[in-house]
């Protein structure tokens, strides 16, 4: 019987280890060879508008656990494609394949798409995106991801560009934002130490905080987004007199944390990142718990500017739900492709995908190319493919986002 129990225990440990492994998205240092510099010979931006039909191969999860993100990037893009095609001129044709959030499936989807596509739009999530980016780099396809935020996506590949903030970029911006708006004196941090997204943001925040003199007084970690209990962490944060808690985590553990903090009589200000987006959509949530919570998100569906209201109206009419930031990133990505194709004077019907790739790389990195969209205005890209845009923070007031 003793043997049996130890066997069963070993099984239990293996299970718990497997559970840890599933949450920690380890990124392979994918870099096969030095990055080639942007082709200098590519046609520079001309005033000649683009012509023909640009075939866009889209990849993202339409089914499976992260389908909500993939569907949003697809649907947001479709709204933009419809608007663009109504203008006449260059036509966009989006063929979107399901990758279920799995790297192998994404590469298969890419292999199906590459016969017909001129450019690749995707993937939605980081791991599949890195794997597809390896292929597009070798095959010379221009690739724009709406939402894969790790630096490993673009590193060493001149052809891959991001529409979203990178994780380090967002962490540093968050520190700047807290400092510039004097949101807190004693900063506490709670993060998931088994998750690349969370630790990436935390590292960048801490590094930036040291540079600009933000006072980080306490740091607490948890190992798993399914962790239910945060009593010890909250006691430690409360003991350090934290008045602003930085939470570079997803909204599921965040809700458990604010709930436990309230039960223990600890009421700091909360500041989250884009992973916090969605906390208002939890079925049955208590809005009082998150009243006043701030988060950095590039898109606020309840903003009142004309571009946002028009997008939200069209999106609701077409899909019956409010668009999130992924949908907005998808929408902006299509417009960015369209603007760049026009600036580069792409003749989509007669140019090869290699030529289109070089032309678009030259345009995106040219410095005078910028895009105004839902997630930012005057957005530009570095040679590394990372976007530069102003961070926007919102505060939850009476159960809706209010831009700060």
């Amino acid at each position: 019987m003793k043997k049996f129990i130890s066997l069963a225990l070993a099984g239990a440990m293996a299970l718990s280890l497997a559970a840890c492994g599933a949450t920690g998205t380890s990124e392979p240092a994918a870099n096969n060879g030095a990055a080639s510099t942007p082709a200098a010979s590519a046609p520079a931006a001309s005033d000649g508008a683009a012509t023909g039909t640009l075939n866009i191969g889209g990849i993202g999860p339409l089914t499976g656990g992260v389908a909500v993100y993939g569907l949003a990037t697809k649907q947001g893009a479709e709204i933009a494609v419809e608007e663009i095609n109504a203008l006449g001129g260059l036509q966009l044709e989006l063929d979107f394949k399901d990758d279920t959030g799995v790297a192998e499936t994404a590469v298969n989807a890419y292999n199906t798409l590459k016969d017909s596509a001129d450019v690749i739009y995707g993937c939605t999530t980081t791991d599949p995106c890195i794997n597809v980016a390896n292929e597009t780099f070798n095959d010379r396809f221009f690739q724009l991801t709406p939402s894969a935020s790790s630096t490993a996506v673009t590193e060493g590949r001149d052809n891959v560009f991001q529409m979203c903030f990178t994780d380090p970029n967002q962490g540093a911006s968050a520190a700047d934002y807290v400092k510039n708006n004097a949101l807190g004196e004693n900063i506490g941090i709670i993060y998931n130490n088994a998750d690349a997204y969370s630790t990436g943001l935390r590292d960048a925040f801490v590094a930036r905080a040291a540079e600009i003199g933000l006072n980080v007084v306490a740091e607490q970690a948890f190992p798993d987004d399914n962790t239910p209990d945060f009593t010890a962490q909250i006691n430690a944060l409360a003991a350090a007199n934290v008045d602003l808690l930085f939470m570079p985590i997803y909204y599921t553990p965040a809700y458990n944390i604010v709930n436990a903090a309230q039960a223990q009589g600890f009421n700091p200000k909360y500041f989250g990142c884009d992973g916090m987006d969605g906390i208002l959509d939890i079925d049955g949530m208590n809005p009082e718990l998150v009243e006043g919570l701030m988060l950095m998100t590039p898109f606020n569906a309840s903003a009142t500017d004309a571009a946002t209201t028009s997008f939200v109206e069209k999106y609701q009419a077409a899909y019956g739900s409010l668009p999130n930031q992924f949908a907005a990133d998808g929408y902006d990505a299509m417009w960015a492709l369209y603007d760049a194709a026009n600036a580069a004077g792409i003749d989509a019907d007669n140019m090869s995908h290699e030529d289109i790739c070089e032309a678009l790389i030259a345009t995106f990195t040219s410095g005078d190319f910028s895009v105004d969209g839902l997630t930012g205005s005057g957005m530009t890209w570095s040679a590394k493919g990372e976007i530069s845009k102003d961070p926007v923070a919102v505060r939850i007031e009476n159960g809706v986002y209010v831009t700060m």
Partner: protein
Amino acid sequence: MQFLSNLIGGVSLGSVYALIALGYTMVYGIARMLNFAHGDVIMVGAYIVFFTFCSGGMHPLLAILIAMAACTLLGVTIERVAYRPLREAPSLAVLITAIGVSYLLQNGALLLWSANPRAFTSVVSVSPISLFGGQLTIPGNTVINVAVCLVIMVGLTLFVNHTTPGHAMQAVSEDRGAAQLMGINVNATISLTFAIGSALAAVAGALLCSSYPMLQPTTGAMPGIKAFTAAVFGGIGSIPGALLGGILLGVIENLSKAYISTQVSDAIVFLVLIVILLIKPTGLLGKRRVVKV
């Protein structure tokens, strides 16, 4: 004061582990099998309470009773379909089947209720107790969790020791073949065990999510594994052992988070378990059984 507060947090977490561990230990003690799906039955129970109480607006006690009935049905069905045909199979086969059932329940819940998390409204409406002029607060949930644990432990002990079905369970636990020869319906007894264990799972689910409100299809998995550890820690098969093991595990976990590191608290918990098993292989309150061949 902070130490006391951490201690109480540990007891609170531990009482949830203990509630789950009672179900594990009950089934193990009598059916001699590890029901790894127990954590997922808890999740199902929590979802049923969510739909009847949190969004359905029923009285919490009625909601819990409905969940208990549903989980009992689920537990008995699982036993009938997945475990009974393997009664004579090697224990490893049963173990693997149990893990399979666990995944089946998780993925079934994903299909049925989607991966979107839900926020559970606490079924407990006891206001927190404030001590030392507000320096120390004991959440209402903690009080209820510990009380429910004690009541269930005492109830189970009385049931097993002083009722006819309880005696039948003990007999089945000691020697299945001999029990059958004495006219005990072994299958019915094991079914009854699963029924009780699963009904407890529904209660555990409601209390787990009342303390920690995020409910997802994977909610039961990690507490399930921890509770299994707690059951082994206290001596698997022993009802008071499950309570002791659960509370101790919660306290160790919370204190190591508070005073050693939040990053390795799980590793410390398992390390303590290994040490205990090396010193006392049957767990804290476990009985040594001599298996005659």
